[in-house]
């Protein structure tokens, strides 16, 4: 197990190293740099030269990459030229908000998706199950901004229960952020719910066909016990993997929803950072994305192992 963990960690580090070089070169390859992006059309030769000198942009790419890497080893993520702040100060409050948003959306979606997935699998072929199936397809395929605007109309305009757009800054207290979380969270939860629910249902149906379930039923074990002890443990790893991937997406891919609801999370700043040629910020967010995906696959592996006796046996051997 330790060897396995170490190997994965080493691979992750390698991936990150390669990615940061690629990001550095990618940003470099774009026309303009942080200073032209900052100054826009007021970029006179003098102002550009001043800006580049002040921000160390005259050094070679390699030099800046090494500088950044050594900063990172000391826990320094660099400085955003455009925003005049350290990257840590920009990322941390937004990271907190994104985590809160992802947590709320996950709590809304995951438990319900498992329950509904099992329920609809067990009622396969009934009219209600078909309706749930269709609805989940609609939710999955509808662009987020459509879901978002329908929800906005329902809850911010017609029944004015929730704020339609966030009007507090990224650094506001969680208590102030919380009322603004519901609409984006419900939007995300609906998308995530559909994915997880469908994978739970499919996995349940496949597992149900397998011989050990048939054997259990033949032994006359109560259906409730068959579902809980025999089918579920074998069927859960698939939806858990889906949940891990969607949880990672909830933390890194929520740009559209954040823009629509003006939510101060990481998604929006990531896109801004690219247009601003804000290398330090882009790299910090890349690093974060990588950590999230590595962590989510670790977690899903661990949970899958815990649930599946065969996998446990493999690890032990």
């Amino acid at each position, binding site marked *: 197990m330790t060897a396995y963990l170490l190997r994965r960690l080493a691979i992750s580090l390698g991936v990150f190293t390669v990615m940061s070089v690629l990001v550095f070169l990618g940003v470099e390859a774009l026309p303009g740099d942080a200073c032209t992006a900052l100054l826009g059309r007021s970029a006179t030769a003098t102002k550009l030269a001043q800006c580049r000198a002040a921000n160390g942009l005259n050094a070679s790419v390699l030099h800046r990459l090494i500088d950044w890497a050594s900063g990172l080893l000391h826990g320094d993520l660099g400085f955003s030229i455009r*925003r005049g702040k350290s990257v840590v100060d920009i990322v941390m409050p937004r990271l907190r908000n994104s985590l809160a948003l992802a947590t709320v959306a996950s709590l809304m979606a995951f438990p319900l998706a498992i329950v509904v997935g099992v329920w609809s699998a067990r009622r396969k072929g009934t009219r209600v199950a078909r309706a749930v199936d269709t609805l989940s397809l609609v939710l999955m395929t509808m662009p987020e*901004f459509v879901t978002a*605007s329908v929800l*906005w*109309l329902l809850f911010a305009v017609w029944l004015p229960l929730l704020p339609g*757009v966030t*009007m507090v800054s990224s650094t506001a207290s969680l208590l102030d952020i919380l009322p603004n979380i519901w609409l984006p969270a419900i939007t995300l939860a609906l998308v995530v719910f559909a994915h997880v629910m469908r994978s739970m249902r499919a996995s349940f149906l496949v597992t149900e066909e397998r011989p050990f379930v048939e054997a259990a039923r033949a032994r006359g074990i109560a259906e409730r016990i068959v579902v809980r002890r025999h089918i579920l443990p074998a069927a859960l790893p698939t939806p858990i993997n889906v949940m891990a991937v969607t949880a990672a997406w909830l933390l890194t891919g929520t740009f559209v929803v954040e823009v*629509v609801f*003006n939510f101060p999370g990481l998604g929006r700043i990531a896109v801004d950072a690219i247009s601003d040629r804000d290398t330090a910020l882009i790299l910090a967010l890349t690093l974060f994305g990588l950590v999230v995906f590595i962590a989510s696959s670790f977690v899903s592996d661990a949970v899958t192992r815990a649930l599946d006796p065969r996998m446990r046996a493999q690890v032990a051997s």
Partner: protein
Amino acid sequence: MLNKTVLRLTKRQPARLRRRNLGVAIVALTAFGLVSCGGSASTSTSAGVLRVANDAGFGGSETMDPYDGNRFWPAINMVFDRLIGVDKDFSPIPELAESWVANDAMTEWTLKLRSGVKFHDGSDFDSADVVYSIDRMIDPTFDSPVRAVLGIIDYVDAVDASTVTIVLSTAEADLPVLLADYRALMTPVDSLDTIGKAPVGTGPFSMQTFDPEGTTVLAANPNYFLGKPKLARIEIPAIADAQAATQALLGGQVDMLLAVGAKNESLFSDTSKFTTQRIVSGDWNGIDFQVNHKPFDDQRVRKALRIAVDRQQLTDVVLGKDGGVVACDTPVWSGDPYRWDGDCAQDIEGAKKLLADAGFPDGIDIEIFTSDVEDNFVDLVQAYQEQVKAAGIRVKITMADASGYWDNVWMKEPVFVTSWGQRPAPQVLNEVFRSTAAWNETGLIDTELDGLLDSARSTLDNDGRAKKYQAIQQRLFDNSATFIPYHKTLVRAMSAKVKGVAPIVIDAVRWEQIQVD
């Protein structure tokens, strides 16, 4: 794609705003469809509080220093005052200066200051503050954007506590108009270190909470010298995306959007809940032909390229119906007292003849560089391409990357699209069209035009000066290498409960007169 907030695109907003145009247009369309099906938008507007959305254009690096490039523009005119303001017809009116007079040569201006005016912290406003403020505006090291307007000021002398003399490096009969620039605001002596976050001004509102990424809060200044504001408070929440800002107004979370884009106006057509105003502005787009590239060195070719266009039709196509006011290649907008309105109807035959005379009987091929760096840039070139075909002008459109546009294309390629914000005639003509101007985009050297500019500047008599400025614009129509088809009309939208907002550009809005029922 819907228009996003376009207010003072070039004048006030940095490049990054212009790409905020996320394809969430459908949000608005869905919203419009459903709202107009009879939904009832709730407004939680509370009396005495005005909430104005701000687009967070500088990503949190906003400052309240009015001379800084990253000035927090929605609020600076609430907190600070100018020496001279503008009336509804854009003539100069007293603000912190009571009266002004120039010497005969128009090189020295003496201003009498209003007495008894106090800053928000209780200290007196006097001539020392004026000297300090103008020194900061014209400081070459700081290089404030205001310096482009007031750089002609050599120095300022405090004659006594309530009198200053402004000494210019050149004659300028319209100094009062230039001093009415919305950024030429008065700040207290030695405020450099504190002004960014804790500004102290003389204006109708004082800063309570400065939070450019969240909600900035200003409170009424009960001692305001032009009268106690009718509002108790102004709140300025940051909403980066134009569609999200639209949602905020539709959902009653804000009371006012300073600019919604002409194509969004119909979202606010329910007059029981919303008021919209069409604001004729001085913002313009142009196509520049650099004269150091053939054949644009030939005046006949330049003129042919400009008169082959049906400007009204082009304006309607690019900006929407009533989205702009046609211009005959003049940068001077329709609200300016010096504006020249000539006859610039489409003249295909005239254009063909000019081209033939210049040695192009079979027409010419040109390549125009554009980009989606700003709204209208691409539409403008496409409409132009269609319209000039008949005159034998064959246009190839080249799309440039938005992020490198101002650096690599603008003023670099032979033909490119440009945009400018509203400026008074003396300023825009000197800043962009004088041969020696840093922003002479076409490189056209016209010493006759320069002579006319000098002469207009130093003409004391108002009518005489107006005639000279009009002659200058007429000369531009004849000779210039910049095609200017229109000035844009902005749309301002607000809750029907907001009263007292004059339908004029934001520079001239009197915040103390606004009320919310």
